[in-house]
């Protein structure tokens, strides 16, 4: 009898942590996240390159870099690292060598970010992307297109637990980014954080017409602070939402990030792209028609594939 209970619990654990989702979802997430890594290191988080020329006196290596005995950034080191990152990201973005290129990209990205954060300013906007790069290589080759297209790897609509685990990890990491940010506000700012003047602080340091207008009405700022704290602490609910409720939650966070970008110039794009792990991405790609059939007959194949698409969340 206890065996039955344990078996049911194991089944529930498996269904939650490794749901059988269409494998193509991982292929599409790769097709977005690896190009984003290229954008990130060239544009958004390009300070590691600049750090290569900074006198070593200002380098304050993180525990990770000390443990791995990574050297202080130098001009040659950061340039070689950049090339390794770009090549591995481009190869992985094309769906080639998903395990090898993905693993190299993840390791190089950890080196890159730990460099970025080893001058005393640590951001938390990359947490979900780091998790995504660590788990994506575990899925192996997956085709972007469903149907009978050529190429190696799992079919895009094939239900796959390994893909489900990777996507679940990214979802959990996104939620952690929000929920733990809420916890940190309580830890460091106390429950009074939301009633305080943190937005006044931020707006007075980086002034725009919009922030000046908002700063003129302190009660609005306090209301916004409460909204952020409550939303962050409630974010784990997202992991159990489906359909429109889940879409509404994702849209809320997109609006939140747009708002922080317009007021604070904080874009959080590395987290924003990982919100895609909540979307049934594989539905964006129509199936390839079997060769030799005429255009008009291919459409009938679509409805038959819906059940597989619904296999995941």
């Amino acid at each position, binding site marked *: 009898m206890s065996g039955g209970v344990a078996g049911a619990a194991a089944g529930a654990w498996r269904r939650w*942590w490794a749901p059988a989702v269409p494998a193509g979802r991982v292929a599409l997430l790769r097709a977005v996240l690896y190009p984003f890594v290229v954008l990130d290191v060239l544009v958004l988080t390009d300070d590691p390159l600049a750090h290569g020329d900074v006198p070593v006196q200002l380098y304050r290596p993180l525990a990770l870099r000390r443990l791995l005995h990574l050297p202080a950034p130098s001009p040659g080191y950061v340039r070689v690292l950049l090339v390794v990152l770009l090549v591995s990201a481009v190869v992985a973005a094309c769906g080639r060598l998903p395990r090898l290129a993905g693993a190299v990209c993840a390791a190089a990205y950890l080196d890159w970010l730990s460099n970025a954060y080893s*001058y005393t300013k640590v951001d938390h906007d990359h947490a979900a992307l780091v998790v995504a790069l660590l788990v994506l290589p*575990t899925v192996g080759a997956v085709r972007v297109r469903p149907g*009978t297209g050529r190429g190696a790897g799992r079919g895009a609509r094939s239900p796959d637990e390994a893909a489900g685990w990777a996507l679940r990890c990214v979802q959990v990491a996104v939620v952690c980014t929000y929920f733990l940010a809420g916890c940190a506000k309580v830890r460091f700012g106390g429950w009074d954080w939301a009633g305080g*003047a943190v937005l006044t602080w931020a707006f007075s340091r980086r002034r725009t017409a919009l922030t000046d207008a908002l700063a003129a009405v302190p009660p609005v*700022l306090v209301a916004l602070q409460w909204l952020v704290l409550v939303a962050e602490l409630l974010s784990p609910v997202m992991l159990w939402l489906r359909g429109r409720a889940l879409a509404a939650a994702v849209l809320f966070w997109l609006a939140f990030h747009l708002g922080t970008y317009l007021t604070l110039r904080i874009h959080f794009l590395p987290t924003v792209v990982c919100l895609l792990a909540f979307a049934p991405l594989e539905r964006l790609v129509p199936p390839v028609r079997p060769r030799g059939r005429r255009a008009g007959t291919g459409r009938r194949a679509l409805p038959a594939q819906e059940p597989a698409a619904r296999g995941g969340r």
Partner: protein
Amino acid sequence: MHEASEPVRRLGAAALLWRSAAAVVFLLLLSAGTLRGTDDGWPFAPMSQYAFAVDLDGEVRSPYVQGTGTDGVVRRVPLTAGGVGVERSEVEGQLPRFVRDPSLLEALAAAHAARHPERVRFASLELRQRVSDLAGGRVVRVRDDLLASWTVPDPRQPLGCCGGGAP
């Protein structure tokens, strides 16, 4: 022909076990990082951007660095990736180090000289801080404090950097 009929690819017991263990351990470390940890533990650092209390009647500090060039003109030292390779927040993060050891300011002069060999070099630098006093969440007064200053012994070669031929 249709992939809908393809079987579910299931994870074996060992594959599910290591994945479960990795996910749980990572999750615990991430949570511990925010609840108990410090920035040093990244990637298990607190998710602490904007996670500090600001008293509605307190003050907002905004540090900056200015320098006097070898031509006698006072200029703001650009605390940006393009200016000196480190940003304002990265100077702010080690503010106590600069106050304890003002000679660190010379590293900023050296970084600036390395990046902008054509520009006038800094003969002395000051780390200053603009302090805005708040009342009811509004800025009511702005002060300006000196935190540290440093005279570069050899302005042409800060920290022995970049040859001696510069302005």
